């Protein structure tokens, strides 16, 4: 008998019955409740109950804009004593259901459901099969991986196989560049491109918008082809060389979109202080305008501001400066942004590959 067989197998029919009971309960006070479901969101927590609470809070926030069924997989601390391997009380999977409700714009109470799977010991092996049974059919499946590394763990691969998108968050790692490279290797090892995503990539979208807007004006478009230098200032965590996840993705994105060759563009990273973690303070692009050296600079007007000043250092006529406002987006909002996207993002795939290829930095 395998360890998994010894573990308690969750009764899916019972879970569904609990859900039905839950919905009857939420509607019990006469206040009409709308049960909305547009997707499945599988959230895989880090070890310990602390992350389960954080993940539950995240799911509640996401449910306000992306209602669906959340399957939160948690790994409580294993309290077994040596020699207690047969002790069934902790070996297996416990499942419970809950609802996240909020008021819609019209006052309607809208509820989403969360199924929490607490896996202990051999119960870990039951996760893929249990998740698969509990998914709402015909709706997209997104997996959010909150654990540190993929390593040799078969779980991420199993979840990826049943997911439309597999989302990591490299910005939360101690060495984001290493995490990004791990994600790239993971993405490359499975068939079907475009199924991996990274919250850190979504985080830099507003900066991509800002940098792209330099070249919306037709007069500045030729400068895009003449970039010689890129300097990114961002806040940690960062590994060697102050390479943050945001910095790595911005550089990889520019390199892939503009077809930079090795050593064509000098790229440097610097640590920003007085800024919340994982944020970008400034990006400076060395280029030329009408043949004269110039720099296009996007910089927060102060470290705590969400307004970025786009300016040009040039002697030539230029339609700058102007300001843009960065949207305030926490991890929940960033995750919602990824959930709303089409399921494949070839621009991300190209940026991820460029980031990891070694041609870029």
């Amino acid at each position, binding site marked *: 008998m395998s360890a998994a067989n010894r573990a308690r197998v969750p009764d899916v029919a019972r879970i569904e019955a609990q859900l039905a009971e839950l919905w009857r309960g939420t509607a019990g006070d006469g206040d009409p409740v*709308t049960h*909305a479901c547009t997707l499945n969101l599988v959230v895989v927590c880090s070890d310990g109950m602390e992350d389960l609470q954080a993940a539950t809070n995240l799911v509640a926030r996401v449910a306000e*804009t*992306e209602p669906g069924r959340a399957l939160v997989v948690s790994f409580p601390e294993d309290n077994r004593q040596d020699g207690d391997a047969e002790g069934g009380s902790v070996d297996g999977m416990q499942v419970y259901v809950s609802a996240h409700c909020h008021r819609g714009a019209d006052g*309607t109470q809208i509820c989403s459901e969360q199924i929490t799977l607490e896996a202990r010991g051999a119960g870990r092996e039951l996760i893929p099969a249990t998740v698969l049974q509990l998914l709402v059919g015909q709706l997209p499946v997104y997996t959010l991986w909150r654990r540190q590394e993929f390593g040799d763990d078969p779980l991420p691969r199993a979840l990826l196989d049943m997911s439309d998108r597999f989302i990591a968050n490299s910005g939360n790692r101690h060495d984001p560049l290493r995490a990004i490279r791990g994600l790239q290797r993971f993405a490359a090892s499975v068939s079907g491109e475009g199924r991996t995503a990274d919250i850190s990539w979504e985080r830099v979208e507003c900066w991509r918008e800002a940098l792209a807007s330099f*070249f*919306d*004006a*037709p007069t500045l478009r030729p400068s895009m082809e003449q970039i010689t230098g890129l300097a990114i200032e961002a806040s940690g965590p960062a590994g060697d060389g102050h390479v943050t996840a945001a910095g790595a993705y911005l550089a990889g994105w520019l390199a892939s979109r503009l077809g930079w060759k090795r050593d064509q563009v000098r790229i440097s990273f610097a640590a920003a202080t007085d800024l919340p973690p994982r944020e970008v303070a400034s990006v400076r692009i060395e280029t030329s305008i009408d043949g004269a050296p110039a720099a296009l600079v996007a910089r927060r007007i102060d470290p705590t501001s969400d307004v970025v000043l786009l300016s040009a250092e040039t002697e030539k006529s230029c339609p700058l400066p102007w300001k843009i406002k960065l949207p305030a987006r926490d991890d929940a909002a960033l995750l919602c*942004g990824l959930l709303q996207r089409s399921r494949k993002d070839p621009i991300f795939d190209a940026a991820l590959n460029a980031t990891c290829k070694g041609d870029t930095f």
Partner: protein
Amino acid sequence: MELDRTAEANPLRAGLRRDLAAEPCSMVIFGASGDLTRRKLVPALYNLRLDGLLPGAGAVVGASRREMSHEAFAASLREGVEAHSRRGIDDALWDEVASGISYVTTENSVAGYRKLGEHLDRLDRERGSGGNRLFYVSTPPSAFPGIVERLGQAGLNKPGNGGRWARIVLEKPIGHDLESARELNRVVNQVFNESDVFRIDHYLGKETVQNLMVFRFGNSIFEPLWNQKYVDHVQLTVAESIGVEGRGKYYEEAGTTRDMVQNHLFQLLCLIGMEAPASLRPDAIRDEKVKVLEALRPLPLDQVGRSTVRGQYAEGVVGGKKVAGYKQEPDVAPDSPTETYVAMQLFIDNWRWGGVPFYLRAAKRMPKRVTEIALQFREVPHRLFEQSVAPNTLALRIQPDEGINLCFESKSPGPKMRVHPVSMDFRYGTSFGQQPPEAYERLILDAILGDSTLFIRRDEVEASWRYIDRLQQGWHEQGSESGLPQYDAGSWGPAESDALLARSGRAWRRP
């Protein structure tokens, strides 16, 4: 027509959510001191800017006959944004927007417009507008031709230095009847190419109206039922709870038929009745829409009275408040023959809709504000159950509570075979937790991008006026201008309107 989608020219735009970010331009608003500018246009521009959909470069120029300083104009716009924007104002961003706002007092002369041109040239240099120009005409319709002619005479129908386009946006109403619409279109097309003319009907900018196309042509289950074989009749309702709100003078000239039916209701009718376009190209869609209008069965003049009902609101109670009747409104004649309620039965004579009545109604001072399209399907061919079963209804709610509702019969629990109607609801606010943009945001952005899909083409305007003119002629010949049926403000309209449907055994929905 090639769109100015910057993703095609700027590779960094590819894959961005805002891959439709617009090129810099100067937007000149004629009639800038009017209410629309403060309530809708500038809040829309501000929100587009907030979303990063408009570049920092570019300018907004108010043009009006009234004397005003740049600062006073910018301050009035700020008040407008504070009062009417769907999102709060951000000081830093507003300061940035305000730095591009200016005001020009326009004389009604070519010289005055040349001065405007010099101002725009200066903005091209100082604000990076790139020579692109969008003229937004939000004046009373009588001023349209003069503005357009002077723009042409001053050479402003061409882009400025380095620019790629000069476009004009015209607010409704486009004409008062077919003849005036044709004349206005003639004047406009003498100065601007049709591809640079954007006739706005703000209904088309609403997300739910755009969803009609997705609902019909993005799902395979509805379209097979969308025809005379399965649909008994269609009801389109545009009800407003407000009265004429100080616009008595305008309303006396227009009436509900010209104000609501010729544009909003006919556009909804087109989207419900049209065939699937071959592509999403603007002209592919507009070709199909105009076919619907051209297929409307002309009403014999002596049948106009039988197929239509007009009415006028008398005093009553709306939203718990006592309100005056139409004839007591300011600037309304005490013996006014203008309708504030119109209902009509019409037919689209084509293979899809042959014999299916479309019931349209638009009115002011209804019990509530609602815009809804409802398809009532035919009854089942054989009565199997003791109880009568109600026909299925598919209701598409445009505003408020945007969504879709399907009504069908179901068995009530219990030992007896009892049939009970139930409904299946889809609500935008539930499935998409995000706030949709205002219609004007979408339309202004599309005009800057050069995407005319949601704007009305010349032949659409003229085809709709052709039908409306005939109704007006019929009403005139029957002398029904005098003594329109009255209805209490806050009611669902005159009893004659119920009779219009009752003759064929049908009834209006109570949305």
